[in-house]
């Protein structure tokens, strides 16, 4: 009887939260799946079911291809820069945990991750600026020609990758630091007694032991980079104020299809592609983790 009363209480108490959760999460997620199978232009009243036609059109859409390729390049570029660098930095910070500057290291590396995106992107926009920016001025000191960082298609991708990596680094370092703090000390002492150098312990002990952390950081970095938008909006907008002409990414293409072309169903199918990418990445992460567990 008491058990039953407790069950009823718990369900009643959680109901409002679940109701909100359902309304602002479950319902729109269901809607995006449903809309992706329908043709809906904001202006028209009816939304006919058209099966996978939206997806078929996507695969032949030049702009979508461009967005998908650019977003993938950005995501993997950020991954390749961020993860190894974060691991080394975390190792160095962990090694100097007792340094009086330890707090300074953590804070400075983490600040780019928390400051408002747009002002931070603005700082980089100035740095990359072809005429006024300090980057070209610095390069000219070494006799390198000034580059159109934000106008050349390839260079603007690189600029976006640099900005995104600068922001993602702090988060990755922080997660790695947690990982280093949880490593078994005895192993390192044993390695030291066997004459292993610090570098050898890092290479042969830390890297394999931190594999689960690396997987998590890698996938988290990739997933958030696949949703890149604000950075591109600020960096790669041209003088006329048409944002993102230079670097088209998935979220930008999606929003443009919704609010400029009024093709909501079509934009929904793009969102579903983004979701599928994220699900595949998460699945890879979990299966790699499991594989490791099975071998033990």
């Amino acid at each position: 009887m008491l058990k039953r009363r407790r069950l009823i209480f718990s369900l009643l108490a959680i109901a409002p939260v679940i109701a909100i959760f359902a309304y602002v999460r479950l319902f729109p997620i269901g809607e995006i799946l449903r809309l992706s199978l329908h043709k809906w232009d904001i202006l028209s009243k009816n939304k006919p079911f058209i099966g996978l036609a939206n997806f078929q059109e996507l695969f032949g859409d030049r702009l979508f291809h461009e967005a998908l390729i650019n977003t993938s390049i950005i995501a993997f570029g950020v991954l390749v820069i961020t993860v190894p660098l974060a691991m080394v930095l975390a190792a160095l910070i962990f090694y100097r945990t007792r340094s009086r500057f330890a707090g300074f290291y953590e804070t400075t590396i983490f600040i780019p991750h928390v400051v408002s995106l747009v002002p931070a992107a603005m700082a980089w926009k100035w740095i990359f600026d072809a005429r006024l920016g300090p980057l070209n001025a610095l390069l000219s000191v070494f006799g390198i020609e000034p580059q159109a960082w934000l106008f050349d298609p390839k260079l603007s991708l690189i600029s976006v990758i640099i900005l995104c990596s600068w922001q993602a680094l702090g988060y990755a370092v922080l997660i790695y630091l947690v990982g280093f703090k949880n490593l078994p000390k005895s192993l390192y002492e044993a390695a030291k007694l066997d004459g292993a150098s610090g570098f050898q312990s890092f290479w042969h002990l830390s890297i394999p032991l931190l594999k689960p952390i690396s997987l998590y950081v890698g996938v988290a970095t990739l997933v958030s980079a696949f949703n890149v938008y604000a950075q591109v909006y600020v960096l790669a907008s041209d003088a006329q104020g048409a944002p993102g002409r230079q670097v088209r990414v998935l979220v930008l293409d999606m929003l443009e299809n919704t609010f400029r072309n009024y093709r909501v169903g079509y934009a929904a199918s793009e969102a579903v592609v983004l979701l599928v990418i994220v699900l595949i990445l998460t699945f890879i992460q979990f299966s790699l983790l499991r594989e490791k567990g099975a071998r033990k």
Partner: protein
Amino acid sequence: MNAPAKPLPSSGQLRRKRQALDFLVDAILLVFGLMMILPLILLVANAFKTPAEMLSWPPSIIPANPTLDNITAVLSDTPLMLWIFNSFAFAVLSAMAISITSAIAGYLLAKFPSRIMNVLFAIILATAIVPFEVYMIPLYFQAQSLGLLNSLGGLLLGYLVMSFGIFLVRQNVIHSIPDELLEAARIDGAGEIWIFVRIVLPLLRGALGALFVLAFFQAWTAFAWPLIVATTQPSYTIEVGLALFQTGFTVDLGRLSAASAIVLVPSVLLFVLLRRNFVEGVASSGLKE
């Protein structure tokens, strides 16, 4: 492994080597840390520079002829303070909503086990994987049908709950609140709501503090959602206001830097003050698996 025995170096030599290494690592980290914040420092410096000084090479960190022209210009050109207020209200209310919903749901999911609760928890975890950008378009039409576009309510609609927050509280309740404590209170005749408010919430102070700070910065730096939901100048958040401001024709670098600095300085200070909370919250996000 049969490594040949090395001659052991004397302890003085070892210590000196160790000190040199420590110094080297410190130097690397100091330089790297400074480089990480250099773009922001230069941005703040630019806010106080005259147009001529902004072009000089190498860029100066302390302006030679500091001027407040940029700041006064940007404050009179744009409703910057209103945008900051919008962002601040949005961030505080969102952090409150997320803390409350997470505290209630996390506690109930942890301490009232039943099959329904397990199902609910599985659903919450599964949706945590889905990025906000994926479902924000349907959510936009929900905000529209509620008549919440261009309002604080519309902004909040996207940021009322956080799957990770629910998860974080649930983990904390499981690890730090023993069943016996709750049972003892019940035997003493305490009601469930009294137990939640007087026993559970105080014990969750640390976790909820971390979550609040995390949620605050999440809303403070939100971009895509405010951009589509708040499209009239008085309803912009600071991120959106600045992003649109910078695409204007007449805008010069000095004013952009000034506007950015006005936003950056308080949020960096806030972060430095709340760093412990924030780091705790973010660090626990990595321990999901």
